[in-house]
């Protein structure tokens, strides 16, 4: 019986000796969705992916991809998926063309070579150059073509844009979204860059120290994230005056360094600072989104304080309830 689930893990656990890589990971990714898998380096993202691809074996628990057990049906699964490793290794003495041709020979079906040439042209990659002569970004393009050229049902991408310049980065996401739209394939995207995931993911999961601590839609996460506001004043006294007028219950982490002042505020409450901003004698204003690290600080900054640590989760649950009511 086929289901609508692309990836499912049940209590998936992996220990490296005595150190846990992931612990009791329960994850569900639906078919056709773009799922962002977020976490800092060493959080367990790559361990999860390597378990799903059967490159390493679970200590306990189980996982299925497209209704197949990852351990027993690994080859069948990999016929239907494509994977881009985080640290892409290439055959140094081979050309890009030979590398791709070899990789595609390992599929039972034929991969359209015209598509490969089209992708290489779009990404501006010389297929006939030896990989040792290519820059890191160009090597990464080989990996990108290796996942975008075959028609598969699931793409597993581990830090896909590392080493790419911004133009190619944008081109990659454009191609990925086109492919996802055309084939309706599922995308499992691991990254520690929230901006990257924010662009395309429908849902995200956050993993910390091997434990999945949150699964939410990007909207929910965005609402959760605090904005970083930075102001530059004409003088230190103006900065102090501004700080005195700030509604203390709405801002977090106010710091002042000479003429520079910084604070954090919720996205939806930014409008409430406008009166203060209009009165403040500032000469520069910068408001930026939270990075993933900022969100982690929001989640775990006060990890020692259990109540504080649970706050974001409570807020996500409340957001979900609100959304369900609307629906």
């Amino acid at each position, binding site marked *: 019986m086929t289901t609508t689930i692309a990836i499912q893990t049940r209590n998936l656990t992996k220990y490296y000796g005595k150190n846990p890589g992931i612990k009791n990971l329960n994850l569900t990714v639906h078919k056709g969705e773009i799922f962002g898998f977020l976490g800092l380096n060493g959080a367990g993202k790559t361990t999860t992916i*390597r378990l799903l*691809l059967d*490159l*390493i*074996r679970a200590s306990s628990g189980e996982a299925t991809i497209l209704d197949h057990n990852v351990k027993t049906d*690994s*080859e*069948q699964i*990999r*016929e239907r998926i*494509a*994977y881009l*490793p985080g*640290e*892409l*290794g*290439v*055959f*140094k*003495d081979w050309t890009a063309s*030979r590398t791709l041709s*070899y*990789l595609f*020979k*390992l*599929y*039972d079906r034929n991969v359209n070579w015209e598509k490969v040439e089209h992708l290489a042209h779009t990404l501006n990659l010389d297929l006939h150059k030896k990989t040792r002569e290519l820059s890191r970004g160009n090597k990464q393009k080989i*990996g990108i073509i*290796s996942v975008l050229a075959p028609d598969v049902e699931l793409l*597993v991408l581990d830090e896909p844009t590392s080493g790419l310049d911004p133009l190619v980065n944008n081109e990659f996401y454009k191609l990925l979204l086109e492919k996802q739209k055309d084939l309706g394939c599922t995308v499992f995207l691991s990254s520690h860059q929230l901006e990257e995931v924010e662009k395309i993911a429908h849902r995200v999961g956050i993993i910390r120290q091997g434990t999945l601590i949150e699964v939410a839609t990007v909207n929910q996460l965005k609402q959760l994230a605090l904005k970083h506001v930075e102001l530059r004043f004409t003088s230190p006294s103006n900065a102090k005056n501004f700080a005195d007028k700030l509604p203390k219950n709405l801002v977090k982490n106010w710091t002042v360094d000479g003429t520079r002042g910084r604070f954090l505020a919720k996205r939806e409450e930014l409008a409430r600072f406008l009166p203060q901003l209009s009165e403040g004698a500032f000469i520069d204003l910068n408001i930026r989104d939270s990075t993933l690290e900022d969100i982690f600080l929001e989640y775990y900054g006060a990890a020692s304080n259990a109540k504080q640590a649970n706050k974001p989760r409570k807020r996500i649950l409340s957001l979900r309830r609100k959304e369900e009511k609307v629906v």
Partner: protein
Amino acid sequence: MKKIFAVTKEELVDKKWFLIGLGVLIGLLGLYLVNLLSGLDLTGLQAYLDTLPESLLALLGPLDIANPYSLFNAYFFSFLWLYCGVFLVYMASSLVPQEVENNTIDLVLSKPVSREKYLTGKIVFLYVFAACLMGLILAFVAAGMASSNMFLEEGLHWERLGAIFLTATLHLGTLAMTAVFFSTVFLSTKKTLAAAVVTMFLMFFMGGSYGTAGAAVDNPLRYASTWTYYNPAQYFGTGNFANFPGDLAVLIGVNVGLILASLYVFKRRDILV
């Protein structure tokens, strides 16, 4: 099979010049030796050897220097493991670990090829390499024999070269498969190379002297060494094939055992990068 041959083919394309270079170099050495021996007058040396005590002759083993086959074997085929084996062990030690160290294994094993097929592709390559290498070397030796008066007087026994081809390929196979087995255990080129080279020399000292020194250094431990079952002195030197089927069976058995052990270990282990 298509996937296994895809892996084998890429390895062959990568190492073709190494194969040709090594084969031609060792082949030329063989050709040179055939010509060198053909120009020697060995009757004086044989007369001197005949004066030596029997116990000393036993130590030297079944060496009949008046016979070009026996003499050539003592100089060439008995040391073939050293000429070719070291290179083959080095290559076999790095085939899989190098892919782990360069992270290319992730790219390959994330494609629809099972670990067994991937490793089998590498193993097939090693046998093809060993067989082609022996083929090239023996082609030069055969050319030398055919143009040597000494061998022509003794008669050209191509079946002896055929026996050398089979047993030397299988013997080199055991050295390579030992390295492959260690590579699946360690997944590290350095550790694999160290373990495989130590094992190779250990095996040589346990059983390598059998071919030349015969019963004088008979030792029960030698039966555990693959060198005991590689007897070019018998097949090529004297044309004695009495032990040939048994030796062949043991060498095939050792190769198969090491292949199965490698596949078993590689299938079960984590591929860490």
